[in-house]
């Protein structure tokens, strides 16, 4: 067993001319809950897809438990994508059969107990379930594996607060303590309490990797507040209703001129 669970060196991924990941060097240990944080388009999903073997890197390499992504790493990685991946003719029971067949670390009893706690019928077809129920079922399946690495892509995006609590409690209550959980999200205040470590991704690069408590100790603020600072984009508008202290001095233009829109508007009217 390798000491570091994830090691990425010089990792790059391009889609055509667009670079999704520029140069990522990353090491993640075992027994941690790690937040992969960054705004939309910063490369979070790309990194996770590379880790679970759905994408191949353009350059650089990935080692998970010392191995390049392949059948072995897939057997120790439990992946929750940002979408539903079920064939909808299946029932919850069929899915359990499927997971039991392919993943040796799947704990069926645990999964069934969690479904029962939710009041989910095992013989109900996926097709007839609500979106929220499907998402919960998918999370239950993923968290019922005793995996080394859980890769959870945006598990709490677009859910109501009650569902968010269910999701976070399910993750906390069920992950394998010797394994590592990677949660990608841009909703930091919701997950900050459950994280050991955070990785900030900005435009395809890792700009900071640190523990939550170390950030709070040294910065005197929450990770959420730090995130807002790191990823701050200064808005520009004709009227800035509440200029804040920090951008008055450095960023405010001396004289606000109305944007040159007049010509376009005339052109539009003429048509």
């Amino acid at each position, binding site marked *: 067993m390798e000491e570091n669970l994830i090691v990425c060196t010089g990792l790059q991924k391009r889609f055509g001319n667009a670079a999704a990941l520029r140069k990522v060097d990353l090491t993640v240990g075992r027994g941690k809950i790690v937040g992969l944080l960054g705004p939309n388009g910063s490369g979070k999903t790309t990194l996770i897809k590379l880790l679970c073997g*759905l994408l*191949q890197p353009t350059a650089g390499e990935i080692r998970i438990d010392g191995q390049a992504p392949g059948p072995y790493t897939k057997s120790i990685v439990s992946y929750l994508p940002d*979408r539903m*991946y079920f*064939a909808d*003719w299946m029932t919850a029971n069929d899915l359990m059969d*499927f997971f039991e067949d*392919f993943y040796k670390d799947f704990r069926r009893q645990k999964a069934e107990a969690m479904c029962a706690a939710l009041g989910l019928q095992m013989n109900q077809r996926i097709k007839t379930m609500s979106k929220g129920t499907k998402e919960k079922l998918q999370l239950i399946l993923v968290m019922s594996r005793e995996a080394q690495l859980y890769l959870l892509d945006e598990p709490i995006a677009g859910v109501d607060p009650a569902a968010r609590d269910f999701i976070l409690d399910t993750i906390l209550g069920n992950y394998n303590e010797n394994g590592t959980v990677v949660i990608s999200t841009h909703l930091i205040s919701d997950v900050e309490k459950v994280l050991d470590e955070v990785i900030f991704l900005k435009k395809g690069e890792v700009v900071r990797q640190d523990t939550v408590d170390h950030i709070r100790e040294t910065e005197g603020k929450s990770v959420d507040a730090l995130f807002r600072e790191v990823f701050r984009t200064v808005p520009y508008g004709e009227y800035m209703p509440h200029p804040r202290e920090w951008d008055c001095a450095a960023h405010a233009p001396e004289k606000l001129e109305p944007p040159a829109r007049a010509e376009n508007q005339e052109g539009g009217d003429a048509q």
Partner: protein
Amino acid sequence: MTGKLMKYELRSMLRTFLPLWGAILVVALLNRCTLQIESLRDWLGGVPAILMMVLYVIAIIAIAIVALVFMIQRFYNGMLKDEGYLMFTLPVKTSQLIWGKCLSATILTFVTSLICLVSVMILVVNNDLIHEMQELFSSFNATVMYYSNGLEIPAGFMPQAILLMLVLGVACIIAEILHAYLAMAIGQLAGKHKAGISILAYILISMALSTVTSSFMASNGFGIGNLLENVSWLEDVGMTGGLWLFFGFNILVAVLQIVIFYFPTNALLKNKLNLE
């Protein structure tokens, strides 16, 4: 692992196909009744009997189309769309995923063909037909003897011929399925219009392949027309030898196609997968 993959693949296919197979056989049986029993055939001026026959023809066409659509859809939706997120993160090799799908689709196509054959037999087989078939076979025998200067069809020829035909049939089914898979594996590389580019790729591959094959056939004299014109070589290898030579060659061509289609598909899905 390929076996496990096939288990789920076949399960999802059988859900749709068991009822279809059943329906074909039942409709064939009903047609047999209307053909056989005079009072039924002439009932209401024979309209129901005709409609029943039309229904049978439609059912046969429908099952062929459904089988084709299903083969494509199980791969396209099951591997290259959302379900791909599940399939490609299973602890199996890409090759196992491809063969799991391909062999399941082969079995499905094969059994469907068999069911159609059985339904035809239900429809038409009777003593007269068996008699006619026997006559046809002996006339075939005579024809062969005439052309081949007195060579006789040896014992055990027909079983071998049927076996070789089956092998060739299965090889051709596999080749055609992999042909479609390769086209879709190419199509998924595109960011947009994946389906359109898949179809385009299918057509281009077909054209390239038929150009190569026809020029090869023409230059080597392996066409069926050539074989029949120059039957003298049959004297050298005997009837059974000729049979093996003919089918062996065609099976080889199918296997070659399988190789040509499979390896790029595997490489594309392994290294260039681009799920939406």
